[in-house]
């Protein structure tokens, strides 16, 4: 298998020679070589990371958790630029002025709500301002004590509280003092940035402290900063052993991970784009209604939730289950089953298996009322086999040659030696789904032509397959796909791209996948890896601003 991976990588290099030096592992180049990642002999080590900003979701979730407020301005945080497809991986993008403005607006809204409706849990603030200066300052200290540990995610020292109260004192009136406090807490660099492994030497891996572990746990599984129970676990020392960490990971997974796991799968398989899958010309596809779009969005979410939280299913089940969870909004596609208004589990015929045979995948890539096998293939290779197609190679469309099926036209269109270098891999993968039309209905005819859904997945040594269901089963049985999924979850969960140094951690997750563990166990496994417990500061030098720090 290892030699095979090299072959694929070499092929990739041949795609116009645009892939960088394989020795280069910086965050700006193609992800590391699969060979090295699956090396079972790789020692425990950890890849480098910079401090990162909380993602928009993390920021909003955390502020609402800490303050107990619902924040309207949480809707207008500019989207983070998703490097490698995940909005938690923001490396390489400078913070924008719009983001910095949004951080200010969030703190302002918290202050507005505090002034308007009081502060949850701060009893001494109830009678202020009528109480006078001493009471006002007691209120300020209580607000600081109540929020500081949650916001800073580290041990709070007297100096921290004094600094916050000092801010309050600078205000001309009590209301402004509360505003100072809100900004002091929620625009603080230690709130907005995940600052971990402080004082570690660049180039060396450092074991993280308990506060940092708590933060990683909570952000990876629930996309929010630690709650009071997790911080209590830090203080009582129960995160110092693996069992204590595992216990908290399981608690978080079982109580708050739902939206985060949905977010991860939604970004990994780009299922979040389902709602924008509308055809450009609806008249070409009259059945592609808003209801249908909502139906396919509803289906993948309900199916994911069922596999992970109801059936306690495995990754293999997610890829190749013989059932789905759909409502009557998808009656046009699932005409073989009784469907009701709410999504419910229905058995599938043998021609359809798993997530990739659902409309959310199949109907997303179409061109007018025709399938788009190239986009299907490129996406599948990238997301499931970690085979990246360089963006340099943007495709054009084939002419509408009469007498040729859609498949044959694409084949003809990509036949030149220059194209074949990549399309020799892409086309056979995309053609496997030709037995599903542009809305995801199973078919045996493509207009006047008999459907030919033969193809193969050369990136996982499955060269001879036929039809979408066979693709799902081949992918589910592949160790390469398991490893790719481990890498994808690593990227989302660790909020950075894996490096060679992370090989043993990726291997550990892969092993759980291959042995058929439940997705719950697999996803939690990340939190017990060496990479999760350590950090290596990036060796990249800081910019020279000509200023003394």
């Amino acid at each position: 298998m290892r030699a095979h991976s090299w072959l694929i990588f070499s092929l990739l290099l041949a795609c116009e020679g645009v892939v960088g030096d394989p020795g280069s592992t910086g965050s700006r180049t193609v992800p590391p070589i699969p060979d090295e990642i699956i090396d079972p002999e790789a020692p425990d080590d950890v890849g480098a990371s910079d401090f990162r900003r909380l993602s928009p979701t993390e920021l909003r979730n955390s502020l609402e958790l800490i303050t107990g407020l619902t924040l309207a301005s949480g809707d207008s945080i500019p989207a983070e630029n998703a490097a490698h497809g995940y909005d938690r991986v923001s490396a390489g993008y400078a913070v924008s002025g719009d983001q910095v403005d949004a951080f200010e607006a969030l703190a302002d809204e918290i202050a507005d709500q505090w002034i308007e409706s009081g502060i949850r849990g701060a009893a001494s603030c109830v009678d202020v301002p009528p109480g006078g200066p001493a009471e006002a300052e007691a209120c300020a200290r209580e607000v600081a004590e109540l929020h500081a540990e949650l916001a800073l995610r580290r041990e709070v020292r007297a100096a921290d509280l004094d600094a916050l109260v000092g801010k309050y004192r600078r205000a001309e009136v009590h209301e402004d003092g509360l505003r100072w406090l809100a900004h002091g807490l929620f625009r603080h660099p230690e709130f907005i940035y995940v600052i971990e492994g402080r004082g570690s030497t660049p180039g060396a891996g450092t074991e993280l402290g308990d506060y940092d572990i708590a933060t990683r746990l909570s952000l990876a599984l629930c996309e929010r900063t630690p709650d009071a129970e997790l911080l209590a676990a830090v203080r009582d020392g129960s995160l110092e052993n693996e069992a204590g960490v595992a216990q908290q990971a399981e608690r978080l997974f079982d109580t708050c991970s739902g939206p985060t796991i949905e977010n991860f799968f939604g970004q990994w398989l780009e299922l979040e784009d389902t709602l924008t899958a509308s055809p450009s010309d609806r008249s070409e596809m009259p059945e592609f209604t808003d209801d249908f779009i909502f139906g396919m969005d509803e289906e993948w979410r309900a199916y994911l939730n069922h596999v992970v939280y109801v059936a306690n299913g495995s990754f293999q089940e997610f890829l190749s289950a013989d059932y789905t969870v759909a409502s009557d909004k998808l009656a046009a596609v699932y005409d073989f089953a009784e469907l009701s208004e709410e999504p419910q589990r229905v058995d599938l015929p043998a021609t359809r298996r798993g997530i990739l045979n659902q409309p959310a995948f199949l109907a997303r890539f179409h061109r007018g009322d025709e399938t788009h096998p190239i986009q299907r293939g490129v996406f599948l290779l990238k997301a499931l086999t970690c085979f990246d197609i360089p963006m340099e190679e943007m495709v054009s469309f084939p002419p509408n040659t009469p007498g040729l099926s859609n498949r044959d036209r694409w084949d003809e269109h990509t036949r030149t030696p220059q194209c074949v270098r990549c399309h020799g891999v892409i086309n056979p993968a995309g053609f496997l789904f030709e037995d599903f039309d542009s809305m995801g209905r199973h078919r045996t005819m493509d207009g006047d032509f008999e459907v030919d859904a033969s193809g193969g997945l050369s990136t996982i040594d499955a060269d001879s397959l036929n039809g979408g269901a066979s693709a799902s089963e081949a992918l589910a049985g592949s160790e390469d796909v398991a490893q790719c999924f481990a890498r994808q979850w690593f990227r989302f969960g660790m909020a950075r791209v894996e490096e060679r140094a992370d090989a043993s951690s990726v291997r550990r997750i892969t092993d759980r996948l291959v042995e058929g563990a439940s997705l719950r166990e697999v996803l939690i496994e990340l939190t017990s890896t060496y990479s999760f417990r350590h950090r290596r500061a990036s060796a990249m030098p800081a910019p020279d601003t000509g200023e003394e720090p």
Partner: protein
Amino acid sequence: MNRRRFLRGAGGAAIALPFFNTFGAGEARAAAGAPKRFFAFMVDHSESPDMLPTGPGPGLDLRNTYFDGLQEYADRSLIVSNLYSIGGHGSGVAGALTGKPTGLVDNMATGGPSLDVMFGDRWTDEDTKLRHLQIATASSRNPGLHGISYNDAGDRLVPDFDPRTIFEKIYGPIGDSTDGADPAVARRMRLRTSILDSTIEEYRLLNATLSVADRRRLQEHLSTLRDQERRIQAAEAFSCEAPSPPDPCCAWSEDRQHHLARYMTPDHVALASRALVCGATRSAVVRTGMSTSAMDWLAIPESMHNISHGDTGSSNGGVPLEFAYEWHASARRWQVEQFKVVVDALANAPEPGGEGTMLDNTICMWIAEMGIEAVHHHRRDHMAALVVGGAGGALRTNQHFDAEGRHFDDFLLSLVHAGGCTDVTSFGDSGENPISEILSV
């Protein structure tokens, strides 16, 4: 009390002032003949031979090119052709302003700074609201993907695409009728600036406790906070009257098949020209393009992508060459019209406190992702660029210069020198030798 005096009175100047000394602005401005503004306009895909006048040499005549709309500026323009670089689409996006084109993930450059950031940082003074302004045709999903500008640390800057956001950066919040004489408003303003100063101080202090490697992220945030402070401070000196704000963005962008540039670019160039003429910034970038759909408003039935590929057989779009050139030139002429909006605005604006027009002291650069090719194969080995504007006398305009294979990065380095940054000895991956034939400094 005005904002600046207030800051000094409150001790804020101690924090704010060192910032202005950070970028060596004084030295750059002192250089004789140095230009004061930079504008880059980046277009999509490759150029065609119709970009070039018949031959190299002095006496530029743009009439038989798709730059014919700029003929009135021919004596103040320069075309440099036959520049060599590497890569295709991705490298074109990454390397156009950085000279570091080997980015792969998200078309990202391998480092910075980009030309616009270098100039913006050097030329900005305390009355400039925005160190630099990045604008691109994009949608709300991952606008950063369309960025072509990078800071010193090599982080990609996220361009703005929503005309109202850009408008607010230049003129201040839309619908903000705050009256400085109202004591409550004045108190809120004081509070906002004091909190900002305090936040800046927090980042600065925390940074000081970190290792050099770990300072990177916070340093970048600190610079952005200072930009926020700059916007507040410079707002007072900013006296341009705001036109009516653009329409709310961007219901049409929800339709992914629509040609975004058609709607965005005219707003973008209008805003960029106002920002430059008003002195809100000295460095602006507009990127246009990003479409694979037909340009129906120009009666062009194919996408720029297919046209640009031309007739490379049935396997690549198959636009017959006679149409490909015609449609390519029509699309480019529309883009030249957009570019000209900025050139016209600068040409019609007298240089404040100096002689001539703003255009005399500006570098307006036109650049495409890829080079000149009969039919393009995603290559940059025959790059060409147009510059309009006198660059303060630093560029030898009114000529078409054949660079005979000199590196594209040498051209970028030449612009760096034309911009007065003669202390910079290399730029990008390969820019080592400025092209003396296009420089008069």
